[in-house]
């Protein structure tokens, strides 16, 4: 499938070949001199429509478009939703309108399936920057890019995915994408209340013959994996605040724990963190989460460039 004009909505829409295309383009974007990319998107406009708050995703998409020499319209939170609510305008109508102004739309919305609907009503490519608890495909591509950069490969990796595996959209997409790569062994580490949905595990096992294990020990995960992928226990996904308070500190990595377990694992996290990684871990060689956030820029430059048919910086 060609890239120009394509929507990026769900990791389910991407093949292993597609994933490798993006990672390869991101590597070129990152290694090329800044001037090489700076006019690729000249004359192009990106609509940045964030119907709910975002820091990293929005900033890195907008930085990516700036690096490509394109322009940005849009806004975040009440800048968009306020007018919509006041005028009772539908989401579909806002997207249709933006599609008339921009060459590409980046959308985040709290309702699941919103990005798929946006892609159906827009005449220009739509990139999903998160639709509720459902999908966040560009985060997954950034995660894979970071692993590839750190470890030099994606095949035969041992990866522990830790924390809120029930509500976290990031880990659902990540597990799906990792399973595409040969020999990847995943260990799911979570409290029983926050286990990865059985249906998803079964789907991935069936589709990719993936190798999953379940564990509740963070110590064991730190000792035996190449990557430990931490996630935040998200307050906004919990109907019961008491349950949230009880589980938030259940899994936390500190420098002391890294030393005790002699862990050489790469520690990743989609951010923001609360207390699942203590600040003293930041200066260790294991910490890769700020690098991961930084990798959002070349990966999103690559995606914008591919769907806009701009070519790659050299």
């Amino acid at each position, binding site marked *: 499938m060609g890239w120009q004009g394509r929507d990026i909505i769900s990791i389910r829409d991407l093949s292993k070949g597609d994933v490798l295309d993006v990672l390869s383009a991101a590597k070129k974007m990152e290694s090329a001199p800044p001037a090489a990319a700076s006019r690729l998107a000249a004359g192009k406009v990106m609509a940045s429509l964030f119907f709910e708050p975002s820091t990293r995703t929005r900033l890195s998409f907008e930085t990516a478009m700036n690096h490509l020499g394109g322009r940005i319209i849009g806004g975040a939170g009440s800048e968009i939703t306020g007018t919509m609510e006041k005028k009772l305008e539908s989401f*579909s109508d806002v997207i249709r309108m933006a599609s008339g102004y921009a060459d590409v739309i980046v959308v985040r919305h709290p309702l699941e*399936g*919103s990005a*798929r609907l946006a892609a159906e009503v827009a005449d220009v490519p739509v990139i999903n920057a998160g*639709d509720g608890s459902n999908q966040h495909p560009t985060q997954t591509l950034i995660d894979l890019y970071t692993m590839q950069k750190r470890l030099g490969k994606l095949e035969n990796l041992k990866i522990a995915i830790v924390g809120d595996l029930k509500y976290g959209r990031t880990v659902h997409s990540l597990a799906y994408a990792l399973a595409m790569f040969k020999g990847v062994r995943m260990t799911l580490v979570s409290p029983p209340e926050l286990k990865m949905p059985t249906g998803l595990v079964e789907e991935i096992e069936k589709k990719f013959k993936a190798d999953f294990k379940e564990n509740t020990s963070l110590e064991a995960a730190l000792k035996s994996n190449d990557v430990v992928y931490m996630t935040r226990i998200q307050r906004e996904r919990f109907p019961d605040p008491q349950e949230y308070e009880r589980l938030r500190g259940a899994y936390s990595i500190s420098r002391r724990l890294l030393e005790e377990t002699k862990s050489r694992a790469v520690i990743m996290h989609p951010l923001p963190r609360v207390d699942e990684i203590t600040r003293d871990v930041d200066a260790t060689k294991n910490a890769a989460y700020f690098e991961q956030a930084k990798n959002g820029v070349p990966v999103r430059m690559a995606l914008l460039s591919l769907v806009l048919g701009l070519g790659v910086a050299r």
Partner: protein
Amino acid sequence: MKRVKRAKTKRTKAKAARTRGVVAARAGAGGKSAAGASGAESKEMVVTKIRDGTVIDHIPFGRSLKILKILGVSEKNPAKIALMIGVESRHLGKKDLLKIEGVELDDRTLGKIAVVAPTATINIIKDYKVARKTKATIPEELSSVMRCLNPVCITNREHIGTRFIVEAKNPLRVRCHYCERVFEEDVIPEAL
């Protein structure tokens, strides 16, 4: 509305036992009974033949009421329908059966029926004869057949039709095209 006569022979007694069930019938405007006895000697519960319309047979026991809901039958919207619940069946143990006078169901309605009654057979009746007999078939995709049970799915907020990809037919499992949530057979009737 219904008449069940006593049979004289052991054979008819046995047959009567197999077909015993609840008979309910709605009479449309000007309609007489939809169920009746075919003869004084029969112990069978007999529902009169329909001239033109649809007979849905082999409905899993108890699902016919869901089908009535799909058909939109109510006191405000009466149709001439004969409904049998809990009829004994060799294949299903117990089954339901529906006869609908004067109505030929469209493909979308038949798709909905297949979702709640995957074992059903559909007989199109023309001039008292079976003109066409088909098995209920669940399509590969269900378009606007059911609502999404995920309360935060965009389809429950925007005025758009729903789409579900059928991932498995037996037992039925569908995935919402929009929110990607999966629903299993046991909860799907709630969404119709």
